[in-house]
């Protein structure tokens, strides 16, 4: 799950990290009021779930409340990489002397959390890693011990020399790791971490991605989920316990299992068409799940044919067939449906589908080709 910068900063504050004061606004007047409250100058920052906000013009400096109104008015409603800005964070502008990067993520290959710091802050860290890897220090953390102060010291000295600044940075590095671990994050970063004119260290930006599987431990974070920032079909799918990703093609796909679902999309592309979506109905799927899946796929008006590919294991083909019958009867789809069924209870399933004059094949390539033909004929 992605959360906004202002929400990540709430988590940072909870862990005692120095974050400049600020509040979130949905209207320009509200932004002006906040600026009057906290004092100017301020930064007005678009709150969207995407990187590169600065380059896109979604982060602006404003010297007085009038200018805050003006820039908030510009940023609110702006489109950044396909996402509409609905909120801005109005936050105190710092007097920046230097910018650094600190972050923590999971090293999948080493199977350990990894801390990363760099004196080259304020720019894309992946770019730094590619062009000047010597400017990044990586340090793996033993999950049993957690990040130790001596490690935080090592990281801080890689970036700073002044002992007072090193002490401030160490505190932030230790707190960042703790927040990362306890919030069940997959990524937590501050870019940039700044040193101000009077030698104070501040986290002026914040990014946290949350591991969905860890949300049950932190109900306060689950409440941060911003439904308005998600694709409505993806939200509906999540609520129905389906994995769904919207794509651009016209072949709607309903598959059991993530790997098979990806392979099905790849096959659609291989035979010259484009999949409209990724959709995994999961393991033990009930007829209801299939019905919900059909509803979600049919929301997309670009879909010209629906392709259902099931390899029954725990998923029973008869459950799927019953779901298809229910969906066809209740939703009366105008687009053709093609079905592939193999595995558990496939014979019973075939009989069930006869009721609505659907013939299921057992071959995945065949069903994909058929779906493409039908979509082209439509």
């Amino acid at each position: 799950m992605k959360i906004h910068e202002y929400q990540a900063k709430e988590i940072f504050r909870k862990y005692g990290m120095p974050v400049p004061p600020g509040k979130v606004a949905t209207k320009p007047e509200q932004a002006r009021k906040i600026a009057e409250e906290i004092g100017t100058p301020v930064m007005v920052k678009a709150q969207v779930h995407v990187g590169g906000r600065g380059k896109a013009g979604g982060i602006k400096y404003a010297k007085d409340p009038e200018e805050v109104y003006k820039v908030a008015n510009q940023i609110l409603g702006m489109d950044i990489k396909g996402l509409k800005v609905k909120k801005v964070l109005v936050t105190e502008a710092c007097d920046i002397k230097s910018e650094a990067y600190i972050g923590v993520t999971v090293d999948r290959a080493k199977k350990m959390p990894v801390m990363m710091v760099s004196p080259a802050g304020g720019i894309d860290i992946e770019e730094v890693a590619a062009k000047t890897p010597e400017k990044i220090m990586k340090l793996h953390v033993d999950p049993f011990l957690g990040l130790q102060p001596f490690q935080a010291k090592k990281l801080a000295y890689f970036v700073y020399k002044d002992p007072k600044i090193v002490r401030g940075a160490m505190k932030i590095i230790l707190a960042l790791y703790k927040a990362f671990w306890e919030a069940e994050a997959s990524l937590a970063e501050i870019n940039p971490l700044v040193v101000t004119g009077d030698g104070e260290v501040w986290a002026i930006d914040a990014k946290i991605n949350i591991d969905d599987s860890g949300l049950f431990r932190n109900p306060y974070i689950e409440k941060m989920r911003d439904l308005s920032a998600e694709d409505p079909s993806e939200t509906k799918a999540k609520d129905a316990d389906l994995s769904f990703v919207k794509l651009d093609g016209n072949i709607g796909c309903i598959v059991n299992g993530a790997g098979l679902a990806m392979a099905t999309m790849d096959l659609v592309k291989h035979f010259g068409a484009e999949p409209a979506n990724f959709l995994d109905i999961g393991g033990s799927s009930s007829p209801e799940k299939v019905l919900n899946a059909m509803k979600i796929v049919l929301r997309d008006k670009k879909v010209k044919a629906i392709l259902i590919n099931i390899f029954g294991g725990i998923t029973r083909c008869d459950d799927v067939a019953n779901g298809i019958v229910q969906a066809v009867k209740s939703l009366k789809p105008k687009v053709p449906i093609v079905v592939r069924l193999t595995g558990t209870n496939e014979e019973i399933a075939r009989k069930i589908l006869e009721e609505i004059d659907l013939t299921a094949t057992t071959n995945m390539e065949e069903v994909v080709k058929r779906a493409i033909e039908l979509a082209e004929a439509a």
Partner: protein
Amino acid sequence: MAILVDRKTKVVVQGITGRDGSFHALQMKKYGTKVVSGVTPGKGGQSVDGIPVFDTVEQAVKETKANTSVIYVPPVFATDAIYEAIDAGVKLIVCVTEGLPTTDVLTIYNYLKIKGVRMVGPNCPGVISPGLSKVGIMPGQIHKKGNVGVVSRSGTLTYEVVWHLTLKGLGQSTCLGIGGDPIIGTNFIDCLELFEADPQTEAIVLIGEIGGTDEEEAAVYIKKHVSKPVVAFVAGRTAPPGKRMGHAGAIISGGSGTAEEKIRAFNRVGIPVAELPAQVADLVAEKLKGGRKRRK
């Protein structure tokens, strides 16, 4: 021979009285797996289809000599279930449960190393050595005993590939799904090492997908250490970046973890990558033609 599970495998089913646990305990038993016990706290003394149920894994291991645990408990309790199994002294844990927090699996992984216990999963279909033993949820009937080893990050896609192998008369030594999570107990390299050492296995199928760098590392390992022919498949050529494709681990992040990179890594070391799932069987048949040919 086969790897990981065979006739000596004695299974304790953690979460045996749950919906999935009871169903699959019976399926495993029907397949011929020695399912010796089950565990559900508070239900000790009961039995499920003749399989005795205990309150703790320790009791189950002591009373029934179980050496392998399969876990079907809900994600909130799965972490504790894994530690309990490690503590009870089983040598292999198969964790079917999906949805364990990554931080938990990081800690579990490092603890397994200390204790010398192997875990397959989490979020996996399990392990089957056709004709010998099945520990997990895969449909037994699509498999056939033979000499192809199959290792995959997926579930149903593995069934698809295995089914084509079986239709072509290419039986399997062992098939295992290692799981779709970002952190898993057993990775491709571990399985390649086991298959290379297994006399029954003559060819290896590796089914990867987007996310992480396990496939790239496997390719390098194969070049150095694997003499048996390997055929690969990679799912997710059409997956968009930054989106989680069902599996928690199937995500292209920061431009890395794409199918293209993985395919290139395999091709670089001379491993053929099938374009379509059905082609895997053809490529394996080609490799096995005229008996086992060493790659070097």
